[in-house]
């Protein structure tokens, strides 16, 4: 009994740096009065660091033949090594699930023997859950770089989501920090999965009973701030992944210093929280707001502003776009106004059919006027600041807002 607790302690601790915990995107139904279904996208609890817990996220083992500098389970690290048996993982998953602790399992592993051998073990867990226990909850498997296509295919039959981590956004960084790995080994499975997912989708349109294959698609993760990359480089890689491999999500994980390796930021150096946050905001703008990555970061502007969000930053650089007329402009223009989110934008477009909106109504709808007011026209309101210089508007906004990231320096309006 205490043995299994110890294993869980070690193998959950080693898996925690993988930030993905999404459990939505799949629509697996409960079949034949079995256990579980997916699609609810529930976060069952949140850890003290504020991250959601929706899946039982563990490694099958932390034995590993690789020695990647940024990883806690790297071969050269002097830590206790343990391994779950397949049955132990199955029992944990089922029993946690039945008590409504989790939405499913996120299983990854250190690489023991070789890629195929490891991948086979991961598949065995998923297969057992699906076949022996009629488990219809969410399963996210990490695909091991270098595993054969046949195994990837089999994994896709049982899992809702598969992922391969890109780890380091730039290739030179990967070479430096994980010399035994190469980018090609990560890209190849992504490409294979993308092809396969598309094939199955086409087949499904023809034959009703095509078995589903990775219904929640694939995702990946990049470590931020471990290899001196710029935001522009990161975002470019992300856009590429979305465009070329139809990824559902790219996760950005600020590097948590875990090693005194000279190639990496030392222990005690700060985790780039704010940068991570800005990257996610940029990612959202690309996926839901119709922004191109090059609009947000480019050669003239390779680093995201830390003091303001990327949409505001874009707006300040492109004053010609504004003001936007709330009561007449197209949805895609309204989406570009700082302080107006997706929901508010849709509400505005619906509500204005019943009469022109004024500033009070916008406020009630949920628009953040502190930012939006410099960029809009609505009933009875025409902003007078739009021709003011970028720096002035920025200082107005910053002085009127309370950032959750405590700012030490007060922004002073420059007289000249």
């Amino acid at each position: 009994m205490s043995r299994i607790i110890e294993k869980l302690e070690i193998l959950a601790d080693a898996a925690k740096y993988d930030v993905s915990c999404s459990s939505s995107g799949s629509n697996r139904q409960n079949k034949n009065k079995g256990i579980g279904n997916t699609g609810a996208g529930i976060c069952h609890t949140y850890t003290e660091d504020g991250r959601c817990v929706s899946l039982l996220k563990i490694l099958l083992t932390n034995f590993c033949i690789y020695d990647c500098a940024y990883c806690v389970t790297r071969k050269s690290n002097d830590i206790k090594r343990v391994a779950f048996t397949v049955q132990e993982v199955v029992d944990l998953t089922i029993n946690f699930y039945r008590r409504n602790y989790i939405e499913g399992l996120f299983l990854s592993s250190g690489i023991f023997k070789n890629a195929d051998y490891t991948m086979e073990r991961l598949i065995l867990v998923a297969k057992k859950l699906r076949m022996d226990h009629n488990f219809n909850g969410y399963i996210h498997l990490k695909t091991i770089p270098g595993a054969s296509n046949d195994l990837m295919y089999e994994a896709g039959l049982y899992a809702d989501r598969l992922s391969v981590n890109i780890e380091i956004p730039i290739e030179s960084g990967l070479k430096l920090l994980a010399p035994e790995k190469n980018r090609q080994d990560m890209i190849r499975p992504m490409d294979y999965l993308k092809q396969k997912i598309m094939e199955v989708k086409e087949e499904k349109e023809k034959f009703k009973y095509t078995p589903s294959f990775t219904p929640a698609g694939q995702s990946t993760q990049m470590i931020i701030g471990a290899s001196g990359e710029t935001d522009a480089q990161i975002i470019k890689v992300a856009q590429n992944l979305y465009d070329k491999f139809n990824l559902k999500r790219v996760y950005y994980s600020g590097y948590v210093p875990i090693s005194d390796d000279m190639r990496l930021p030392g222990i005690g150096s700060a985790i780039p929280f704010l940068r991570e946050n800005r990257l996610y905001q940029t990612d959202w703008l690309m996926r839901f707001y119709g922004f191109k990555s090059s609009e947000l970061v480019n050669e003239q502007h390779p680093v995201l502003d830390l003091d303001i969000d990327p949409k505001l930053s874009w707006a300040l650089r492109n004053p010609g776009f504004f003001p936007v007329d709330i009561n007449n402009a197209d949805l895609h223009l309204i989406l570009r106004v700082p302080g107006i989110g997706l929901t508010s934008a849709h509400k505005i477009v619906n509500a204005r059919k019943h009469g022109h909106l004024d500033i009070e109504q916008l406020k009630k709808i949920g628009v953040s006027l502190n930012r939006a007011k410099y960029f809009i026209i609505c009933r009875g309101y025409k902003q007078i600041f739009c021709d003011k210089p970028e720096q002035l508007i920025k200082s107005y906004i910053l002085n009127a807002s309370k950032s959750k990231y405590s700012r030490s320096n007060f922004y002073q309006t420059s007289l000249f």
Partner: protein
Amino acid sequence: MCVIIYDGTWEGWLTLVFEMFEFKVSVTAIYRNEQPLQQDIFVPWKRVTTDKSKAQRVWRGLQLRIPKYAQENLFCAFLSELPQIEATLCSAVCFYFSTVEEGHLAFGRNDVLTIHQTAKMVNRERHRMKAFTRFKKQKNGLYFAVIEPDFNVLPLINEHFMRRYADQRWLIYDTKRDYGIYYNLNLVSEVKLTNETVLLDDMVQLEKDEILYADLWQQYFKSTNIKERKNVRLHVQHVPKRYWKYLTEKSI
């Protein structure tokens, strides 16, 4: 001008809407049976008796006027049990029944927006209860959970739990409203526990593995946390303290 008293049920409220139209009364306030009534001697009051067929006629009428999600929003807002939410609902429904097209999208109006926002609050609570409900397995094989939601969300979560846990008997009990929902492997029914001691943790007959899995879950909760990223504010924002009481991972 009229104050209306009704039985506090959804059908009761629908009946109330029916009578409001039939007798062309304009409503100033609506009270549930058990609510203390603020007697105003200058305003007449009227008691509405729930009538299924009247309720159904109103509901069918609404189904023709607004899409499904807007109908659900009305029900959710109703379950909020907020004071005078019924009056807001009445005002919005009058608007929906007027000649306006897509009245439910008129977010410039206070009643429509209030319903939308209240429904959102209730839905958040619904989602939370899907997340924060923690079953404890009993010796007799029953998975038992106790909750204390802000709003009356049991009617909104029973289907979710029925679909998900189709092969285990379970009972979710709302101690605030003193009723629960019980699934017997076939269907879900409303139950009321007569013996209050059943709810006391130490009186419950836990299955022998229950403590092991609770321990494992607590261990997992601890180990999956990244200490260097500690952010209590965010943690409490997502898991407000009032829910900790029944969360296995927070009750140590």
